[in-house]
C-alpha cells in the first residue's frame, strides 16, 4: 500500500490506467488502480474538485464520480467538458480521446 505523502513525486500513471470516451459534450474517463491496494490513495487524490480546480478552462460543467469498489475503478462523468464535443469543437481531438492522459499526468500529491 502506498501512502499519500506530501512529497510523492509519482504520477497517477504510476499506479493506475485510464480510458476516455465521449457522448455529445460529455466526457467520461474511467480510472483503474493497477493494484487494489492503491485504490484508497486513488480515491483520495482524484476528486471532482481537484479536476475542476486543475483544469478550470476545460472542465466547465458538473463532474460526477462513480466508484466501482470491487474492481478498484473510478468513473468520472464530466459535462460540458469537450469544448462543444464532436459537433462544435475545433480542437483536433474533438472527442477528448486524449483526456485519459490529463488525469494520468497528474502528480499524486498536489
Amino acid at each position: 500500500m502506498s501512502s499519500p505523502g506530501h512529497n510523492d513525486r509519482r504520477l497517477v500513471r504510476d499506479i493506475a490506467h485510464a480510458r476516455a470516451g465521449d457522448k455529445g459534450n460529455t466526457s467520461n474517463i474511467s480510472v483503474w488502480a493497477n493494484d487494489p491496494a492503491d485504490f484508497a490513495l486513488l480515491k483520495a487524490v482524484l476528486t471532482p474538485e481537484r479536476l475542476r480546480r486543475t483544469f478550470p478552462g476545460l472542465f466547465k460543467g458538473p463532474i460526477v464520480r462513480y466508484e466501482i469498489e470491487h474492481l478498484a475503478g473510478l468513473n468520472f462523468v464530466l459535462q460540458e467538458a469537450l469544448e462543444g464535443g464532436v459537433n462544435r469543437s475545433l480542437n483536433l481531438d474533438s472527442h477528448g480521446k486524449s483526456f485519459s492522459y490529463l488525469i494520468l499526468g497528474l502528480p499524486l500529491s498536489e
Partner: protein
Amino acid sequence: MAAARTYRIGTGAGFSADRLGPAVDLARDGRLDCLVLECLGERTVAFAHRDKRADPAKGYNAHLERRLRALLPVCRAGGTRIVTNMGAANPRAAALKTVEVARGLGLRGLKVACIEGDDVAARVDPGTPLLDEPGTLGDVGLPLVGMNAYLGADAILPALEAGADVVIGGRLADPSMFLAPLMHHFGWRPEDARAMGAGTLVGHLMECGMQVTGGYFADPGVKDVARLAECGFPIAEVDGDGSAVITKLAAAGGCVSLATVKEQLLYEVHDPARYLTPDVTADFSRVRIEAVGPDRVRVSGAGGSARPQSLKVTVGFDDGFHAEAGVSYAGVGAQARGELAARIVTERMLTAHGIAADLRVDVIGAASLFASAGLRSEAARDVRVHAAMRSRRREEAEMLLWEVESLLCCGPAGGGGYRGAITPCVMTKSVLVARDKVAPSLEVMVA
C-alpha cells in the same frame, strides 16, 4: 431452461473504417456462430444520408462490398451468420448489393435479411424537445440531413428466426446486434431483464472491436501490447447463464487482460448501474471480471431492469463547412516562430476578413489537444501551426486556407509543409420518441 451449448460470437468491425484482414482471420479460424460488424457512429449516419442524397443507390458503408466479398465465402463455409449495421442510411441498397456480391461469388441461396424502419424523418414532430438541452428540433434552424431511431434486439430477432445468413440494417443499436443472436440461440425472453443485461454486457465489451483486445490501450513501457500491428478482433464465448469469456485467436496479436476488459467496461458509460439501450437498463456496477487463462477473461454478474419507454433518435443537420490548414516550423526557435505565425493568422482573419468566431489556431508541439487545459510546452523544436474554423459559407472557409498558405512567403522564417482542406460539417442532436412511432420492417432476399 436446458443448457444450450456455448455460443461463439465475434466482432468483425468496431467502427466504419475498421480493418478487414483481422475480420477475415476471425471468420476463418474462430469457429464462430455469428460475426457482428458494427460500423455506425452518430455522425456516420448523417454522412451516409448525404451520400444517399447524391446517389439513391448509395448511403451504406463505403467498405461494404469489399468486406462482404472477403467474408461471405468463409462465413458460408463455417456456418457463421453475419449481423451488421453497414446499411447505414440505406439498408435496402446494402442488402441488394449483398445479394449481388453473393451471386457473383456463386453463393446461391444465401439469405439476406434487410431491416428497415429506423429512418423516422417522416414521423417525428419538429416540436419534439431536444435531449439534455433546451429547445426543440424545429429550433435548430438548419437543413435536416436525416433522422434515425436506435433499433433494438426486438427488430433483429425476426430476421434470425427467418434463418437469415446475413442481417443488414441501418441504425441497429451496437449492443443489440450481439444480444439478438444470443436471445435467439438461448431462448432468452425480452422480459428477462437479467439476461438482457448479461447479453448487453457482452455486446458492450465487443462492440468496439479491438478496444478490448489491446487497441486504444498500449502505452509503451507502462502498458505494453504484443504485436499490436497484428491485433486481432475479439471473440466472446457465451454461456446460457449470460456469463462469457472474452478472448481472441491465439495467432493474432494484441491481448485480452483484466485491464483491457475493465477499460472497455465503462467506455462511454456514465452511471455504471444504469446503461440505457433499446433493450434494457443494464447494470454493470457489480460485474465480475476474472482471468481464466492466457488472453481469456471471464465476465459475469451483469444485471438489468426494464427497458426505457422511448427510443433514442439521432438527428443530423447540415452545418456548413469545416476548414483546416497548417504549416510547420522546425529547429532553433521553432516554437516562437510557430506562435508568431498563429497570432498572425488570428489577427488577419479578423482585420482582413472580419472573422473571429468559430476560429481556433493551435501550435502542435507547443499546445494543441491540451491547450484549453492550460498545458503548454516550452521551446519545442518541431511545431505545426494548425488553424481550424467552421463557417456556413464556403468562401469564408477558403479565406482561412489562403491566409495560412500566405505564411509561406509573408510569415516567420523557415515555414514549410502547407496543407489545407475544406470538408462539409454535420451537426447531430438527439431526441426521444415513443416506441409506437418506430415500426421496424423485415424483408428476406435470396441470392
